[in-house]
């Protein structure tokens, strides 16, 4: 019995907490992705690079001496106009073509390549590791918990809850959901659809940037950081249902826990095939995902 408790205390629980911190960040990125898909029908292949964008901006501004707390607000705000411009200048150019899925996917894929190389040009290929803003750890119920990860989980969860609240309980959220359900009807009822689209895109990008700022001290900052991360976010969005916020949360928690706990028993390099396997099976059996799309449910 004591062995089991020891196992839980020293092996399982820390792994669950690590998985949870990662999960919260993945959910932040996945929510942006899922809102953009649910509303605009656009698969944003450059989303991972915007996550990296957030991390690099935080890094650069941190060098200027701006404290972490300010960055946590400043970087996502600064990314809003960037996202807005990308939607208005790039996405809208091909938005009304008949094969919107494919063209927007390709366009954002190209944008991702450009951004990734831009990071390499500006910062070089080597990883940077910003200092942890909250060092130290606490021991709760005999479980060793790093302070920063706890902070990340709490702040991330608050932001996720705030997003859900705005989308499902406010007038703005109702406009967003109406535009997702029926664009033309929403427009004829006075919803500024073009503005809502660009705004939602900007907001999704800014959430990814926020996750980038939060995760930079844990996973370090390098040009291809978005690539590995976005695969997980895509899997979460697909399993949860493309365009579903609740789905992103449930699938995000589930998949990151699978990854975290599975890596205790099998070599961590094998957890990726398991997670992608879940994604493929999900696409085969239930391509619409676990939950309904934004505006429909």
């Amino acid at each position, binding site marked *: 019995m004591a062995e089991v408790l020891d196992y839980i205390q020293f092996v399982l629980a820390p792994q669950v907490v690590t998985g949870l911190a990662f999960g919260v960040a993945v959910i932040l990125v996945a929510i942006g992705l899922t809102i953009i898909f649910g509303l605009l029908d656009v*698969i944003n292949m450059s989303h991972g690079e915007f996550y990296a964008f957030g991390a690099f901006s935080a890094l650069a501004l941190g060098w200027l001496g701006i404290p972490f707390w300010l960055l946590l607000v400043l970087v996502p705000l600064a990314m809003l106009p960037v996202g807005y411009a990308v939607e208005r200048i*790039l996405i809208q*150019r*091909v938005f009304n*073509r008949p*094969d919107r*899925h*494919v*063209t927007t*996917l*390709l*366009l954002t*894929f*190209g*944008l*991702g*390549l*450009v951004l*990734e*190389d*831009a990071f*390499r*040009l500006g910062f070089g290929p080597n990883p940077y590791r910003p200092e942890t803003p909250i060092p130290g750890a606490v021991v709760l119920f005999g479980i060793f918990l790093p302070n920063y990860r706890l902070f990340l989980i709490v702040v991330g969860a608050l932001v996720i809850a705030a997003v859900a609240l705005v989308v499902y309980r406010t007038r703005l959220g109702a406009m967003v959901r109406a535009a997702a359900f029926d664009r033309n009807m929403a427009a004829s009822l006075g919803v500024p659809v073009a503005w809502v689209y660009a705004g939602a895109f900007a907001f999704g990008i800014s959430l990814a940037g926020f996750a980038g700022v939060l995760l930079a001290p844990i996973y370090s900052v390098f040009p291809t950081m978005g690539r590995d991360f976005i*695969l997980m976010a*895509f*899997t979460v969005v*697909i399993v949860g249902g493309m365009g579903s916020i609740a789905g992103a949360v449930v699938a995000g928690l589930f998949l990151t826990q699978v990854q975290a706990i599975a890596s205790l028993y099998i*070599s961590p*390099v*094998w957890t*990726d*095939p398991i997670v*992608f*396997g879940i*994604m*493929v099976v999900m*696409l*085969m059996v239930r*391509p619409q995902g676990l939950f309904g799309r934004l505006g429909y449910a």
Partner: protein
Amino acid sequence: MPDALTVAARANHLLVVALLVAGLAFAAIGAALNDTFYLRLATEALIFGGLALSVDILLGYTGLLSLGQALYFGLGAYLSALVLMAVPSFWLALAAGLGAGLVLGLIGGIIAIRVRGVYFALITFGLAQVVAKVVYNTRSLGASDGLLGVPIINIDLGLASVSSASPAGFFLVVLAVIIGLYAVSAYILDTPFGRLLIALRANDRRVPFLGYRTASLRLSSFVFAAVIATVSGTLYPMLRGFVSPELLFFSTSGNAVITVLLGGVGTLMGALYGSVLLTVLRSVIGTWTEHHLMIIGLLFMGAVIFLPNGLMGLVRPAVERLLMRKARP
């Protein structure tokens, strides 16, 4: 005066002949100058052109965007490397690639064609990721290093025999194989089967009303594209002497999609010209900056926005006009 379809077909033939003549001239000049580097680069461009060809069959005809075509290309390359290490026979490696393309294409197709549109793109992407990660972690396949030390082989062509180490000779063999793959694809896509694939792309809900099963059509086109990709892949280890898991990664699939877009979607020939264009661009830009990815990304975005028909959208109408003028006395 010839009708539009005949002119389009003639324009295609002219473009193939142009590529073939350019290839032969290139090989002759390269052999005369005793060049290795540029001939090897051109050979690689043709091999990746074969992969792009298979992406174009799916995207340009059936209307399915595959983000995981590198899966078949990479598996073809791995299989070829394994075969060549056991039995150094060009034809056996090619046959193994063909067989594997059929079987693996069928398996992947049954999984992937259940879904359409953007879900198809994601499922092919996921499938390729799973296999790439498995190969990457399998020690008997060389794990992250890949398979090294694929032997140099003598390709028996009946009358003569060509060594895969000879730059010009092997370039010509690859040119023949890739043009052969193009010819087979162009022929098959010109049959009623090919027309049905185009119909699927245009409107897949109406095709069943004409009495055809969309599922088996889609599966056949998937298997067909898989075979083209694996056969192209089998040539890779003969050129480089090794295979690495990068061949299976998304960057390879993504590059093939970029190639098709730059060359022109749905033109087949565009895939080969696109691959040559991209390779030239890469080596030219690469001589003055290492950040070629940015320029290629910008070009790609420009092509998506301003040139949806790619290079062939520019070149082919010009060739057609030329042919029309000639036809008029």
